[in-house]
């Protein structure tokens, strides 16, 4: 017993960590000097003030803590903070004015090939790239507020940029005004949770070659082109909001070459197109709400084996549109507010099959100018007869069990 006590005492002496304080009224006034003095496991506590020290490199495992948001200014010349050690924690800084460069990609905070780095509770303002995780594993990006004022795609980087990483957690960040709010390329086994990405120039979330990820309960609002998920397998998209992504090439959610994924419980509201699918296969789209979109879903003929069930389609101009006659997807038990059938046996399922593809949706797909005639009486007549006897629209584009009442989602 006594030996054990000594053993613990011995180890605790190893565990002892110092706090090195930096501030105007403290003995150490420079962050760089403090980091140089720090040993592994120490805390560098930075007090309020403006620090213009160029590029600050954290090359040992320390806790880098800001008190009352000290400002680290990159003076539009430098990358502000470079993390080059495992297990670093960066917490509570205001990081502004990183440099601009297309070759170097200077960032607010960049993690170089390291693991277990935590970046949390920071405010990033007007940086080229916000937070950049390059080849990181088990890193956490949490509670950061990232803002930029990009005008054009070429002149601004992404808010949270993750490249060739694994097991990341991107949680509760707010991103706006960057090129892409959150950017994932070659990132696996990661989660994007409760982020708010709005008013970015291109995509709210840009997702490429990133398998086995999940993004849950995020809000993507008013981005230049919505959200793009491309060339990826096994993605889970749950409970997200896709709202007000307007424009001729704007989609709530753009899916391109996606397979074996789940889209469940999301809400698509007031987008030009709710979901645009291309080359997508084996996806389950369930319990989503499509509301007041121009097109609820655009399913290109290159999609196959997708299952669309138990969704609400309410108040969309067109519920579904496609560009060919081949239909390899199934629609089951959705609620369509345009359904006009009846339910004699009162089991809540309409007795008449529903063809969600309207003639006019096909016409406008072939000839976009025809949009001019939308809701004209002539077109309504044509649409009605097409619904009863499909000739132009593929007749296997059908929901055999349309619901009479909207699902409470």
């Amino acid at each position, binding site marked *: 017993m006594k030996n054990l006590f000594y053993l613990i005492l011995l180890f605790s002496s190893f565990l002892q960590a110092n706090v090195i304080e930096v501030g105007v009224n403290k003995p150490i006034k420079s962050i760089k000097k403090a980091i140089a003095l720090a040993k592994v496991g120490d805390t560098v506590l930075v007090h309020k003030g403006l620090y213009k020290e160029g590029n600050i490199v954290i090359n040992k495992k320390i806790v880098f803590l800001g008190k009352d948001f000290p400002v680290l200014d990159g003076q539009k010349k430098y990358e502000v903070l470079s993390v080059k050690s495992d297990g670093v924690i960066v917490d509570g800084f205001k990081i502004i004015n990183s440099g601009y460069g297309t070759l170097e990609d200077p960032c607010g905070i960049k993690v170089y090939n390291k693991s277990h780095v935590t970046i949390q509770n920071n405010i990033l303002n007007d940086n080229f790239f916000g937070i950049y995780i390059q080849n990181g594993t088990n890193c956490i990006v949490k509670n950061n507020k990232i803002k930029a004022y990009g005008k054009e795609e070429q002149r601004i980087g992404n808010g949270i940029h993750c490249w060739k990483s694994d097991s990341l957690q991107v949680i509760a960040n707010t991103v706006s005004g960057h090129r892409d709010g959150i950017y994932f390329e070659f990132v696996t086994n990661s989660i994007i949770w409760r982020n708010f990405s709005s008013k970015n120039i291109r995509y709210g979330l840009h997702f490429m070659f990133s398998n086995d990820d999940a993004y849950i309960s995020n809000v993507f609002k008013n981005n230049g082109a919505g959200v793009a998920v491309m060339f990826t397998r096994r993605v889970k998209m749950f409970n997200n909001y896709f709202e007000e992504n307007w424009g001729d090439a704007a989609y709530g959610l753009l899916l391109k070459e996606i397979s074996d994924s789940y889209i469940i419980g999301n809400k698509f509201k*007031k*987008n030009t*197109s709710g979901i645009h699918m291309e080359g997508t296969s084996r996806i389950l789209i369930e319990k989503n709400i499509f509301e*007041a979109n*121009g*097109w609820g879903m655009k399913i290109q003929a290159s999609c196959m084996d997708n299952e669309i069930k138990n969704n609400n389609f309410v108040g969309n101009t067109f519920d579904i549109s496609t560009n060919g006659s081949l239909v390899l997807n199934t629609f089951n038990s959705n609620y369509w507010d345009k359904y006009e059938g009846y339910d004699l046996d009162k089991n809540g399922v309409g007795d008449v099959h529903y063809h969600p593809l309207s003639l006019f949706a096909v016409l406008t797909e072939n000839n976009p*100018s025809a*949009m001019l005639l939308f*809701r004209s009486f*002539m077109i309504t007549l044509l649409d009605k007869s097409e619904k009863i006897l499909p000739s132009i629209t593929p007749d296997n584009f059908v929901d055999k069990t349309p619901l009479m009442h909207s699902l409470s989602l």
Partner: protein
Amino acid sequence: MNRIIKIILLDILKNKIIIGYTLILGLLSWSSFGLEDNSAKGLLTILNVILFTVPLVSILFATIYLYNSSEFIELLLSQPIKRKKIWLSLFFGLSLSMVLAFIIGAGIPLLIYAADSIGIMMLIVGCLISVVFVALAFLCSILTRDKAKGIGIVIMTWLYFALLFDGIVLFLLFQLSDYPIEKAMVLITAFSPIDLARIQILLHLDQSAMMGYTGAIFKDFFGTTLGLILSFSLLCLWVVIPFFISLRKFKYKDL
């Protein structure tokens, strides 16, 4: 002039058809708003009423009224009143009653259930469409003395604007789809008051879809304040031009 308008208004009211029209409009609007839980479908019903029923009733009723009051017009002409005054009073009397019927029948439920930009837009457009088709009725009925022929012309006119015109546009769209015709199409809509009305409402009702590819072209044109003013002034032209042609004809007509 006011006295003649008053006489005509009272006469129209006495004939009860307008009251029936008001009631039917009211029934349609109230029930369509009341049946559905979202106001979008009610708006669609009223849109169809504006594009379909309002023109038909306005143009037919005005024409028949004009033919039936030919004796009354002759009587008025024997008095020392200018022909222009008589014709204008008839026009104001008829348009006023049609507009009132629309406002009471469809306008009140619109303002109660959808008192936003769409509702107000629909109200204004519905009133304008009523007046446009009364003006067209004046033009058609002055063309011929024969009542059957006159009503025939009126029904043709209505069919043309309500159905045929869009059919022709659709045909043109697909025949000329290889050419950049979007802008020309915007121009072509000016040739039908119903289309002008429809597109104005569409821009508000299907905002998201109109942000799409070609929608953007229309939105750039009709959605701006200039476009709005332009399309409303075009609708007003659709009132003024037919009416003034008919007025000219009426002035020199040997009755």
